[in-house]
């Protein structure tokens, strides 16, 4: 399994691997918001947690269609299926690699982009915490979407349509943690809900992903 993780990380970092695409997208979306909303510091401060969460979520979505499609095209998935590695484990590892190359950079970049949106000083910590807890769920759910659409020509758009509704609970509770944190309110309830969602999808989603992938590869 470690071999698979190392290979996926290596591929992401080499030319054409797409590392940094999500991060650049996040940066651009966040920079565009003040232009579209206007230079009202109070308004920006109000919407900053939600905008940052939405930006991170869309950036996460951007690289999902490559998660399994490339391995499908070159036959790697067929060969992995015949390997001694359980498919559930292989998909978990692929989701982990996706999070390390997409989600984690977003978490680290979010405070910097918070400055652009005039995020309240109290909100930085909770923004990072909520993203760190929530983005793994985005990768794991995204892996399920990628498994569903594998083999479909131009499945990227379909993937987005399937995955975005599944992101709703994570978005609601994640943005709520960041919003309450910025407002200096109690964050325990939404944070625990967010952590619960993440734990549940990490535990259960790989089984669903592996099941649909086995059907898709027949």
């Amino acid at each position, binding site marked *: 399994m*470690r*071999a*698979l993780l190392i*290979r996926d990380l*290596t*591929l992401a970092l*080499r*030319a*054409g*691997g797409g590392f940094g695409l999500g991060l650049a997208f996040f940066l651009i979306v966040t920079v565009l918001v003040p232009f579209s909303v206007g230079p009202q510091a109070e308004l920006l401060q109000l919407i900053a947690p939600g905008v940052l969460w939405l930006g991170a979520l869309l950036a996460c979505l951007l690289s999902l269609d490559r998660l399994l499609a490339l391995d499908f*095209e*070159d*036959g*790697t998935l*067929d*060969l*992995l*299926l*015949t*390997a*001694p*590695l359980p498919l559930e484990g292989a998909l978990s590892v692929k989701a982990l690699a996706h999070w390390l190359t997409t989600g984690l950079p977003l978490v680290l970049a979010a405070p910097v982009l918070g400055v652009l949106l005039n995020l309240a000083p109290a909100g930085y910590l909770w923004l990072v915490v909520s993203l760190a807890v929530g983005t793994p769920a985005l990768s794991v759910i995204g892996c399920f979407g990628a498994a569903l659409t594998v083999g479909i020509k131009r499945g990227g758009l379909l993937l987005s349509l399937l995955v975005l509704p599944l992101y709703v609970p994570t978005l609601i509770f994640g943005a709520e943690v960041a919003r309450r944190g910025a407002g200096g309110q109690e964050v325990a309830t939404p944070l625990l809900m967010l952590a619960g969602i993440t734990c549940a999808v990490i535990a259960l989603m790989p089984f669903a992903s592996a099941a649909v992938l086995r*059907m*898709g*590869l*027949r």
Partner: protein
Amino acid sequence: MLRVDDLTLARGGIPVLTGLSLALAPGQALILRGPNGAGKTTLLRSIAGLQPPLSGRIEGAEDRVAYAAHADGLKAMLTVTENLAFWARIFGTSDITPALDAFDLHGLADRLAGTLSAGQKRRLGLARLLVTGRPVWVLDEPTVSLDTGAVALFAAALRAHLAQGGAALIATHIDLGIEAQVLDITPFRASAATRAGASDEAFL
């Protein structure tokens, strides 16, 4: 070593093969013949465990099959060595030197797989069989895009594999120059009558 009993297989919801049985002993190679669309690939994919049969049994295939099809599972941005070492670690082996030797890949070891020619990629894909350490090779047209020299390398690797007590099931149309039984699967073609209730599709 490998037994297949009374197998019925479908592809895309349409039955292609029915009543097929075969057996492989250690050291034995079996060549599959049949016209295009006869079901050679479907049979090999079923034995590799990639698609379930409609009926019948496959014994001795689980976790013992090394499968090689038209796509070699190579990453263009990894070198030849990295590609092989990855599959070696996935299959729990570590030494890739014999595989590099057998397919004469030492000169290419540090090249990116994406820069190789079709025949060189194929050689790398076949070298992957050696690092799996699996006893049953299931090969779908292994000699596509290989030149005569590379075919000889492959035949030598296959002979060594059989000599070590391995077995091989190969769909091919060229003569590999090895001792092998030939099975023509044309007589097992499914008739329209088998169509009833046949479906291998999850979402039709």
